[in-house]
């Protein structure tokens, strides 16, 4: 196993152009994958310390371009980022553990491997490891998807992607056919062999966020058995642009959910129902109806039917918090 340590993005691209070379960011998932045999040892390109990759650049319009090597901890703690993108910050603070957040990076989080126990067990082959089936679909898939895009049933693991989807962010790329791609296009649910749409040799260099919306209302909620440090069964990011710097009714809503499908998902039916809802009051019937109708979106596996009410409940919880409405 060889490791190269390039000193510029151009050098990284050159290294990545060689076949079989993998980039290593914080290494929190890659090291575990090598340890457990999910990945076989091979040449690595170390991104740590490459100039420019961990910078936050503020554009003239007030939007930010956050370098891919920015740590999750920085996303949750950097005062300007926290002020500009509070939903992203809250989400970053809720994932994994303090130690992992201090090392894991934005880019690594977006492109990590999924958490399926079959994928991570060397006893099994699956679509992701050169096999031609999904052993979880026939086997134990309690934590699997509830929106079945097939054939793989492992939910997308990235928590930050859920928040970035709610921000309609995009990723900056080097070494690929296009220089930029919307977050929504970074993932594709029907390809069971991989977690994202980037081709080999493509480097994710940064995430472009929109111009901050002053006084946005937001919530990040996750459902899990344990209170902390657990991969969620469902997670939700709600971002509401409300009139009058957050005091007035919703003008525009973004609701994104994770851990329910092979990709993070937006819920446009819930978003449109939220428009014109005022903070502090009860949720109108149309929001209740949209929550109920979430069941129609779901296509549970034999063991994931519980995720239907859990999705409805977690979305409700996030909306209630973002709008400061009383819990029902």
């Amino acid at each position, binding site marked *: *196993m*060889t*490791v190269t*340590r390039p000193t510029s993005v151009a050098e990284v691209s050159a290294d990545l152009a060689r076949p079989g070379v993998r980039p*290593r960011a914080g*290494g*929190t998932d890659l*090291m*575990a994958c090598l*340890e*457990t045999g999910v990945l076989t*040892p091979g040449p*690595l390109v*170390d991104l*740590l310390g490459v100039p420019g990759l961990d910078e936050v650049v503020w554009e003239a319009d007030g939007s930010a371009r956050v370098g891919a090597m920015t740590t999750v*901890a920085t996303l949750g703690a950097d005062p300007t980022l926290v002020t500009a993108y509070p939903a992203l910050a809250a989400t970053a603070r809720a994932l*994994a*553990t*303090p*130690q*992992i957040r*201090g*090392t894991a990076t934005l880019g690594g989080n977006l492109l990590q491997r999924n*958490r399926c*126990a*079959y994928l*991570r*067990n060397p*006893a*099994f082959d699956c679509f992701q490891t050169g096999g031609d089936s999904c*052993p979880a679909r*026939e*086997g*134990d898939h*309690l934590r699997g998807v509830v929106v079945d895009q097939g054939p793989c049933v492992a939910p997308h693991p990235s928590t930050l992607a859920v928040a970035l989807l709610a921000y309609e962010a995009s990723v900056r790329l080097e070494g690929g056919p296009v220089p930029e791609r919307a977050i929504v296009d970074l993932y594709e649910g029907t390809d069971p062999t991989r977690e994202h749409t980037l081709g080999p040799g493509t480097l994710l260099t940064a995430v472009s966020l929109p111009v901050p919306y002053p006084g946005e209302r937001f919530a990040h909620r996750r*459902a*899990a*058995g*344990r*209170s*902390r*440090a*657990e*991969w969620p*069964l469902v997670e939700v990011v709600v971002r509401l642009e409300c009139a009058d710097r957050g005091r007035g009714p919703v003008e525009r809503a973004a609701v994104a959910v994770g851990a329910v499908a092979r990709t993070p998902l937006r819920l446009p039916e819930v978003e449109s129902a939220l428009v014109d809802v005022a903070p502090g009051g009860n949720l109108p019937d149309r929001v209740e109806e949209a929550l109920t109708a979430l069941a129609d979106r779901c296509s549970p596996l034999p*063991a994931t*039917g*519980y*995720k239907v*009410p*859990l999705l409805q*409940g*977690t979305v*409700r*919880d996030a909306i209630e918090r973002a709008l400061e409405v009383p*819990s*029902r």
Partner: protein
Amino acid sequence: MDTTVNGAPTPTPDEPEVNAAEHLRGTLGLTGTKIACGSGVCGACTILVDGSPTASCLLPSAHLAGRSVTTVEGLGGDHPVQRAFAAHDGLQCGYCTPGFVVEASVFVDAWRTEHGDTAPDRDTIADALAGHLCRCGAYEGIFSAVAAACAGEFDTDPVEAPPRADAPAKVTGRARFTGDHAPPGTWTGVIVRSTVPHARVLKVHPAPDDGGGRAPLVDLLGEDRTVRHVGRAIAAVAAPTRAEARRLAAAVRVELEPLPSVTTVDAAREPGAPLVYPTKAERAAALGYGEAPGPRAPWKDNVRGPGVVSWRGPTAVSRLRAARLREDPLLVAEEYTTATQVHTPLEPHVSVASWEGGHLHLHVSTQALSKMVDKVTERWDLPRERVHVVTEYVGGGFGAKGALSPDTVAAVELSRLVDAPVRVSLERSEELVDAGHRPGNRTRVALLAGSEGDLRALAVDSVGDGGVSVGSNVATLAALMYGRSPRRVRDFDVVTNRPPGEPMRGPGGPPMAWALEQAVDTMALRLGEDPLSLRRRWDGNPKRRALYERVAQLPLWRDRPRGERTGRFRRGVGLAAAGWPYLLGPQARVELTVRGGELVVRSSTQDIGTGIRTVLGDVVAERLGIGADGLTVEIGHGSSVHGTGSFGSRTTTSMGPAAADAADRLRDALREHSPDVPASGPIPEHTFKEALSRVEGLSVVGERGLDRWGRLTPNMAGDLAVGRGMSGAVHVMEVEVDTLLGRVRPTRCWAGIAAGRLYNERMARNQCEGAVVQGVGYALFEERRDDPSTGVVLSNDLEEYRIPGMGDVPETEVYFHQEGFEHVPGGGIGLGEVSVVGVAAALGNAVFDATGVRHRDLPLRPDRLIGATR
């Protein structure tokens, strides 16, 4: 570029396959940093990198270049948080402690800078320490330690010594556990395991080595060449580095003849199912997971049993049948299930062996050192004086570390083969698969009450799911509860091609209580009676009766919410009763020697976190009336006199009296040479020193004397006897159920424990608090998950096998009823097991109280709760 480690520059390694934790431990010898999960979940390997807590097991060592690293050794031992952990006893076995301490040091410093010397609340502390797991469950002590350090209470050394004598060694990383003993040149051994559930092994082909020969390999199967589960140890290989050993292991080719297999209980019970043990001889040799030999039981195909315990059994059965026919409303007949719980000590099974001039030196993590010496001596046919077994610190065991396990066999054999020290340390993926577990159970309980509300009949049928092993005793334990009404209980085992169990803390107890105590609460509801009042009527056990009286006065119980609860968050309170037999080790011995004018306390016992090292010193010091700092305690060396194994809640009640006896004998011996030593009472310090100086080299051995009225059983196999009287426990649990997200949050717990007099209140409390943590894990999260078609264990890391963290446990108060064991020397018996039995059951009853839904299956996962409560 160099790395600054604890203030000193050191070269940064350029080895891609070595992570930072391995580098710090292996190259720099900083073994305070522990590796426990290998996946960044447990926090035992936490170090500071440029002041930021980091999981060093996931950190490429090259990422240390140019950075400043602080390990637990670099904290120096006088950080306020280290003092606080020691003083508040925020630890038991100590294996996770360095990681906790390193992270907490940063949190405490930052908190005080921002908030001054104030104590943060529990949630804030739980957030800060969310990346740490303590399997002993010392969380109550950790909460109070961190809060006290934040409040500025430990800026100077406290006047009082910590309750646990080895706490200073554990909070500084000085305590050296088995895997920390790796002299230069130590090789790594790796076990080759079965990848199929059932097969006959025909031949094992070693990996080719670089020179065209065969890489070193030892066989672990022995005479029985059949593998009966995925993960069964077949052979082991060794190499100078871990990476190379892993490559060699992967290159070993196992030639085998597959046999038909069964990997679920249902499949194993089908007519014509493949047999795990086709012959009588194989069945007779089936592994057992009972703590003591179980009753004989018949076999039919893959089913063993029933093992029956009956007291007017035919009466019980006919009453229950009649009640069912007449649809008696006071018949409660329900089925309850529990999941497989895995011991999960944070220190895995680990052995380091080396041979020198025909002597075997073995460091091994074991709960039963004296037995280990016997087994090693026998297995390798060595004279005792050539066997040197050491187990100075044990990073938790909970029952899993009692046998001569494959890591030990592999290390000893490989070391002899390669003529170098060899360390074999299980990966977490091995520890969670083939290092023992508490089997899952399916248990039917039938209770019948008479019109007066009396218990008329009790029947329990329980089926244990112990993989290839047998020995379920769940039903048997139920026979010991609730008086003498007619009863029949039957235990069965169904064998499958899945890994074997081992005894786990209170074997059979938690599943028994889960089933029985739900049924008793259901009966209380049928009778329209308060659950406490029903137990007070049915339960004649005097110790629990004393605890029930306390519960009746307890605000947690008395002021609990009544009536139907509504809304998203619903609070409920439940209770459960438990008991445990009083076991002891009659062969317990403690030796006192005078060495260099000092008194040394020695025995071949071991401290797995219960605190026996401290107890031995305290008992001797108290008995002689000298200060505890006037003596040295040396346990964990197999050359000492026989010490009790840490099993069956018997260590302290066996070793404590032996230590007292040794102290009495020492006093007598001192008085022969120094008549001014008083015949009783405290010995003045100068008199004691003077007396010791006259008897250099003196050695006396104390024994565990008999109880008044003797024991119930003779000394059985394995240094085990049953004493008179049972310990008792009553747990009261409060929960808050989030009906929207299907989550149970245990908020408060009262643990009433009756096990006689305590030797060390704080350490006893710590153990009972930890039992609540493990019981909460059993109730809510813990569950080994297997692939149904292959039997492969899927929950093979600490992400998939979920043990409770700081934020998942209730605020716990422990109450001790200290009477009732006056017939026992020392007045107290063990409490490690009785304290865990009823926790999950109390939690289940609390969830019912909160939601009105009776759950029958553990764990109470969100998917089970969400459908049932909204």
